[in-house]
């Protein structure tokens, strides 16, 4: 019986990959789980423990189709956090402060700044953001408070077919930013050769999925505290679903 061996090889391979994934590579996004909208922490198919990281979530905000705020929170439902809102939402957003991380020459990451890990070869502050659209916007997606990096559709009328191009703009501190990385499918192709935003902050990606699309913008900005970190990494997802054919 070869199956157990195959599974063992697969599991071992996955474990190795997970170990090799740098901490900063992880992001947050929203996706449907059992009819609810769940907050996911991970990268690729790694759907990691978001519940234990809930204390790192600084804000979760919901909006109706006119972008008016809707009272929204996260509720722990077993092993996953799910969005709980008082009314239907057209969009939900979250901010996670993943804190200070320093990497020592032995390859280990420490949840501290360089001031506490003087031998660190790398020290960074990680912020992670997520914006999820539950329906096609009827007006431009606004910049949400506190989202230092945000990826926004240039045209709110998001194409509804996979394979079609979609232009997005990356905003850093409220202004278009050049040189931000835009990944088109953070879940199914986390190792893709991503595009960079141009001088106007825009980049065009190809919609990969007739289903959930998780775009991820990444920008490395200057240190917010030079004594503790070399830089700040911002990782901001924009997710939405392209509908399947009627059943």
């Amino acid at each position, binding site marked *: *019986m*070869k*199956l157990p*061996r*195959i599974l063992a*090889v*697969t599991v071992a*391979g996955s474990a*190795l*990959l997970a170990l090799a994934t740098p901490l900063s590579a992880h992001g947050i996004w929203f996706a449907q789980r*059992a*009819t*609810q909208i769940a907050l996911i922490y991970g990268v690729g198919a790694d759907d990691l423990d978001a519940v234990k990281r809930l204390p790192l979530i600084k804000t979760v905000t919901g909006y109706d189709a006119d972008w008016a705020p809707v009272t929204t929170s996260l*509720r722990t*439902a077993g092993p996953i956090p*799910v969005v*709980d*809102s008082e*009314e*239907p939402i057209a969009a939900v957003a979250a901010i996670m402060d993943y804190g200070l991380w320093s990497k020592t020459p032995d390859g280990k990451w420490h949840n501290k700044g360089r001031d506490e890990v003087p031998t660190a070869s790398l020290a960074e502050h990680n912020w992670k953001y997520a914006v999820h659209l539950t329906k096609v916007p009827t007006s431009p997606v606004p910049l949400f408070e506190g989202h230092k990096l945000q990826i926004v559709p240039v045209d709110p009328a998001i194409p509804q077919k996979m394979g079609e191009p979609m232009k997005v703009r990356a905003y850093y501190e409220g202004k278009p930013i050049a040189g931000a990385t835009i990944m088109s499918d953070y879940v199914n192709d986390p190792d893709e050769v991503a595009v960079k935003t141009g001088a106007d902050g825009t980049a065009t990606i190809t919609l990969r999925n007739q289903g959930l699309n998780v775009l991820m913008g990444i920008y490395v900005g200057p240190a917010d505290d030079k004594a503790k970190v070399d830089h700040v990494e911002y990782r901001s997802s924009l997710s939405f679903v392209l509908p*399947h054919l009627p*059943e």
Partner: protein
Amino acid sequence: MKLDLMKLGPAAIAVAAALALTPTAAFAHGSMKPQHGGLVQMSGETMVELVASPKGVDVYISEEDEPLPASAYTATLTQTASGQKSQAALKPAGSNKLSAPGFKAAKGAKIVVALVDKSGAKVFTTFQTK
């Protein structure tokens, strides 16, 4: 990390082939025909029928043509009409029926039914009255 299926053996090839050939599941969600003369909307797998009458508002819930037990849910009704919001609790009224007696549904209103099951999972269904 690349896996060489040929080296892993026939079982691996069989598994890979099965995964590749698994068709997209086509789930039947039941009839969308109103059973009580009301307005029908789907929310995920749940079919919700809203019936407005002079006596109030009734809501019927089902999945794949099977009635859901109304007693397994807490539910509310939120109406937005002419910029004004009004809300009422929907109480289980036998079988798959929830009722808000005396609630007046306005014409051209948006009515949102919120259903919360015992686990806390919430689904919304939005109706536009005629």
